[in-house]
């Protein structure tokens, strides 16, 4: 069983990894990361990215990657500090489901820490596999409890 400290340490590792990945992707010299790059749509619906500074095409489909790499006026949409603040704000304010969607490995760790004081569900409990049907007046709907093994497994996994 992993103790709270180990889980917190793992969460910190995961969080740092995601932040580094975000910084790496967002600060990379690419057309879509530049503040001067804008998407324009022509009358026939075709879209293209142009540089508003020198009014030339700067699009990944038209050698934009090389152009951005060597561009002297490239300027990222957000700097490192702003990206870090955004990331921190997201993790602190987003719903657990949103975090789980964007960072699948982070949300379960946060969930385990939230439930640290609660009793651990025993996976060998025979009643856990017993589905629970709640009869409702509406004929189209029943509530069916998923066998809890996968939850308890997830829980056990963090605690081993």
């Amino acid at each position, binding site marked *: 069983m992993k103790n709270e400290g180990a889980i917190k340490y793992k969460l910190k590792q995961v969080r740092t990894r995601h932040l580094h990945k975000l910084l790496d992707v967002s600060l990379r010299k690419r057309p879509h990361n530049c503040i001067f790059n804008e998407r324009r749509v022509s009358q026939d619906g075709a879209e293209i990215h142009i540089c508003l500074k020198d009014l030339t095409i700067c699009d990944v489909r038209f050698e934009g990657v090389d152009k951005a790499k060597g561009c002297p006026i490239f300027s990222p949409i957000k700097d490192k500090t702003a990206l870090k603040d955004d990331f921190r704000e997201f993790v602190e304010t987003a719903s657990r489901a949103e975090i789980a969607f964007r960072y699948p490995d982070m949300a379960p760790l946060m969930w385990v820490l939230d439930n640290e004081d609660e009793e651990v569900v025993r996976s060998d409990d025979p009643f856990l596999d017993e589905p629970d049907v709640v009869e409702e007046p509406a004929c189209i709907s029943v509530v*069916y409890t998923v066998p809890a093994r996968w939850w308890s497994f997830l829980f056990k996994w963090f605690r081993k």
Partner: protein
Amino acid sequence: MNDLLQQLEPDPRITKSRGVPLMVEFPVNTATAPYLVSTSHGLLWVREPLANQVVRAAVRHIKDDGPFFREVLDEIIGMGQEAKWGNVSEGTHKGVNQAIEYVRSYDLPDIELISAVKELDQVLPGLDEFGGCPIHRVDWMLGDMVVAVPADRSYVGFLSRFGSSRAISVIHNPSRGLGVAKK
């Protein structure tokens, strides 16, 4: 095991009195979002459970498991690439190792590989085992990919049949339970 998902018998109490339900609610944990559920005609991504912590899945026509598993895989691959979960790697030996590592990063003890039959497999042709994981050859899989899954499929999701042609499915760990190496 040759299935992508756990095959779960529906509770007889569900069908006993009222026949096959149109829709079933399943309690879930928010931390495991998103969920991929069956609808009456296809599959639907549910990014957040309802307020009472349940997701709704519908019973739909599923005659054979194979095409349905392929449909599930296509959805997970598409969303994984879009959301950059890191669960989809290139269809090489290195990519298969990455797919295994992706699932293993959740400390799951036993991991298996699912792949097309040897004659069709373009990623790991002729092998019975790779990276310490047994390879299960299935006829429903296309030859351009290999999927790493936990041996205990209940970790990924389930398929529950009502008779021979109708079923309901909830994939409650689509973002964590599968690693795919695809050409």
